[in-house]
């Protein structure tokens, strides 16, 4: 498969692995966080751990949109879906995420709520046009990659004069999350990190500049990388070299898609429709200032929060669930007592076990054989 197989070439991978093994210093740890769930998935699916030296550890970051959505907001979406006049359109990943009281969108749908799984905001717009008697709400989640399509859908709805389409906006910002991690006060829950594998698709939109602050202020190297396994290997090598050289800068491995400035048209469109929220709750990171978007007043008629008077009530995760600490990189999936016992992809207790980009789901689905090897060895 052209343009894909090149980035999954095992021979090249072994070459990079050998270089990494040769260049890492045996006397120090290398702790890199891959921010995005897309990278977490690639690392697990292609078994990258097997190709990396023992003193180099990949720490999974919070870049999984489904994972970081707090329970309170999910409860809001379920409540919206249960209104008799509402048709809720959502990406399929969200369907099985557990909300409060064991409720989920899947269960609400089985109870009779009108919930549709869509591939894009355009599907939701189409449903709104076809069903003028229904209030069609799009459950907007995700980072800078999924925000422009939500903005476009709102602009399109305005152009079409739709009176029955709205967006329940939960769009969040990547740099704010990275800031929350590197800027966290020193303490037990602060994860020591030597660098970041920076986002792939997000960076196509926002460019490389927003990361410069982390490299400069916190002396953390950032290498932006594509989601293919060779991209990740190459980025790890580039991070190792920065660490060894004592450099901390933003480097771009993903030059085939990412530029310094990103996609200006997308940025403009987003800025036209959305504005910063003062603060937003993240699962794992807690309340993070300036980390999320809401609709501008000019588009209030498409804002589900205003139309349906949504007031989010903070809700607790399952107390035994370690999703929060796992999303901060503080714990590994196997540190959670629920992992693989009561919490599996079939019966997820926490969000990290639902999305295929979640650390727990990725490790359970692709990597858990390593745990049994470890157990037998010990």
């Amino acid at each position, binding site marked *: *498969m052209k343009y*894909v197989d090149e980035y*999954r*070439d*095992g021979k090249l*991978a*072994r070459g990079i*692995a050998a270089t990494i093994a040769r260049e890492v210093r045996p006397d120090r740890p290398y702790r890199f966080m891959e921010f995005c769930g897309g990278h977490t998935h690639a690392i*697990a*699916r*292609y*078994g*990258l*751990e*097997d*190709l990396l030296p023992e003193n180099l550890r990949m720490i999974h970051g919070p870049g999984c949109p489904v994972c970081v959505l707090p329970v309170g907001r999910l409860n809001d979406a379920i409540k919206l879906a249960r209104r008799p006049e509402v048709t809720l359109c959502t990406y399929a990943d969200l369907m*099985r995420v557990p909300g409060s009281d064991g409720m989920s969108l899947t269960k609400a749908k089985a109870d009779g709520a009108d919930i549709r799984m869509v591939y894009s905001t355009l599907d939701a717009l189409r449903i709104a046009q076809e069903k003028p008697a229904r209030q069609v709400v799009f459950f907007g989640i995700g980072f800078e990659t999924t925000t422009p399509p939500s903005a476009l859908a709102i602009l399109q709805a305005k152009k079409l004069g739709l009176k029955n389409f709205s967006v329940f906006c939960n769009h969040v910002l990547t740099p704010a999350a990275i800031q929350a991690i590197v800027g966290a006060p020193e303490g037990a829950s602060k994860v020591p990190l030597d660098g970041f594998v920076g986002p792939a698709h997000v960076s196509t939109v926002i460019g490389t500049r927003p990361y410069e602050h982390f490299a400069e202020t916190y002396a953390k190297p950032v290498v932006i990388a594509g989601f293919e*396994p060779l991209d990740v290997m190459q980025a790890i090598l580039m991070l190792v070299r920065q660490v060894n050289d004592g450099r901390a800068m933003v480097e771009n491995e993903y030059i085939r898609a990412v530029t310094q400035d990103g996609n200006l048209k997308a940025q403009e469109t987003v800025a036209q429709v959305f504005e910063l929220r003062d603060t937003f709750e993240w699962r794992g990171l807690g309340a993070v200032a300036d980390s999320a978007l809401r609709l501008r007043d000019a588009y209030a008629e498409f804002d589900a929060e205003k139309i349906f008077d949504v007031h989010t009530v903070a809700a607790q995760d399952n107390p035994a669930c370690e999703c929060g600490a796992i999303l901060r990189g503080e714990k590994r999936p196997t540190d959670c007592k629920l992992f693989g016992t009561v919490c*599996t*992809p*079939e019966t997820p207790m926490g969000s990290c076990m639902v999305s295929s980009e979640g650390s727990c789901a990725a490790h*359970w*689905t*692709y*990597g*858990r*054989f390593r745990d*049994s090897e470890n157990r037998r060895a010990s």
Partner: protein
Amino acid sequence: MSAPRLRARKLDLKTGKVDLSHGAGGRAMAQLIGEIFAENFANDLLAQGNDQAVFSVPPGRLAMTTDGYVVSPLFFPGGNIGSLAVHGTVNDLAMAGARPLHLSASFILEEGFPLADLARIAESMGAAAREAGVKIVTGDTKVVERGKADGVFISTAGIGVVPDGLDLSGDKARPGDVILVSGTIGDHGVAIMSSRENLQFETQILSDSAALNGLVADMVAACGESLRLLRDPTRGGLAATLNEIARQSNIGVRIEEDALPVKPEVAAACELLGLDPLNVANEGKLIAFVAPEAAEKLLRVMREHPLGKDAAIIGACVDDPHHFVQMRTSFGGGRIVDWLSGEQLPRIC
């Protein structure tokens, strides 16, 4: 005055629709069965017109199976719900090494379903049955109100005879056994999905839907005593089937990604749709577990059959109390090949 004729006018197979009278037990039903089903399934047992088929069976152990078909869309590249219903049931019998004999077919039709489509489906079923060497010997027809079904649902059952001395079963794999697949994986699921999503590729992806009893007969004839088990990786794909067998046989499975036959267009479609070919359904493929010393011979025999020309050895069984199915990826790392969680492709068969 002459006696009323049973069939005053022939069914309108161009613009006619199924209506509730076609399931009511009256003349309309008799006409539908006669002109569509009996016409296309024509065989001596069905022609007797009884509520059951009565026949004698050759010596050996009997194999019996049943399956329901609700695929959407009803017509897809490479087949339709009718041919699929025959192939699926024939294959379930063949996986026991059985020679399939007779099938039953039960139809649940939705009011308003075009008779032309029903006739096409019945025609495909008849052709698939003849090609597989089986007879559809008994059946049933029900009609439900519009909105209570989705066009047509078909339920088939089948019986076959397993030759004496052959005992294939999912619990018979043991460490060291070699695993073969009869051809490219994921074709059926991707054909369904791409017709549903209107995806266009340079070459159209066809479903692999086919009856495997001929291929199985050759395999049994050549290597019967070394065969442990056969299974067709339908829903859930190769991944689910390997996991089922690992659990049933109390073993682990190790496969090589590089050895898996996948058509480039199927791989491309999976990439686009975010699917893994290992989880995607097949309807004309089988996997075989065989004693290691017979593996090469079995591979040769399979490749000589048109339905096994792309057959490959993909891995082997190991001792593993966790029953893991593990794969060495093309990239070089190891990973688990897990059951699919949740729903990947609704209503693929």
